[in-house]
């Protein structure tokens, strides 16, 4: 059975599905018996999605215009 530290260290491989079946089984045994680790797993898993939403960025209109002018100048036939 893994400790909490070992379980947290393995979360990336677990979520990637790259652990051996045996390791995954040991980890799941730990998670079943450890609510803090389960909570941690859920929030660890939710982190990339939240960050993706927070970091969305569109190119400002003024920059789009500058990009267009730059390319028109450089890409002349």
């Amino acid at each position, binding site marked *: 059975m893994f*400790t*909490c*530290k*070992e379980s*947290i*260290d393995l*979360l*990336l*491989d677990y979520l990637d599905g790259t652990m051996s079946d045996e390791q995954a089984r040991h980890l799941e045994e730990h998670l079943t018996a450890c609510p*803090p680790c389960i*909570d*941690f797993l*859920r*929030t*660890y*898993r*939710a*982190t*990339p*999605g*939240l*960050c*993706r*939403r*927070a*970091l*969305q*960025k*569109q*190119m400002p209109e003024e*920059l*789009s215009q*500058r*990009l*267009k002018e*730059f*390319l*028109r100048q*450089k*890409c002349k*036939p």
Partner: protein
Amino acid sequence: MADQADLDADRELLTQAQTGDLSAFEALVERHRDKVYGVALRMTRSEADAAEIAQETFLSAFQHLSEFRGEAAFGSWVHRIAANHALMRLRHRNVVEAAEEELTEPEFNERGNWIEYPSNDWSRRADEKALDTELGTAIRLATNRLPDRYREVFVLKDIEGLSYEQISEITGDSIAAIKSRLHRARLDLRNAIDEFYGEK
């Protein structure tokens, strides 16, 4: 992820652009500029750098249009060019950046048990439709504080959706090193979000 209709439209525009149709190339630029600008901005944290990278990326794409055979999607191709340009700038930058030791990690006792239990499970709130403005700011600040080599793998993998193999090709780092940095970046950002919800 682009859907089939988008891919088909890109392919058609690309074919026209390859025959010298500049307006078709401009249409491609318009369709992909936000993604190109986004990856550059997230990696460099500088709007000026991101704007220049967008210019370099599309100019480079234009100059190599005839070599592009279309095995990959046009969007993925320019995305990779932008990531490469952003990475080169990061590598040549001469700024003092955050130290690895400043990354937050969960703490355990000598038996490998939690010293302090994680405070709450906010994962369901992450699905709420509107993202809290203050949370967005907290995440952007936390991402900006990551050391460059941690932020770049986090951005390329978790935000841009590249595979470990693609990131390894761009950065020249081993997949094991990339995974290790990604895990530590996620732990640090998870902690920043945790603190945000804990303070609310």
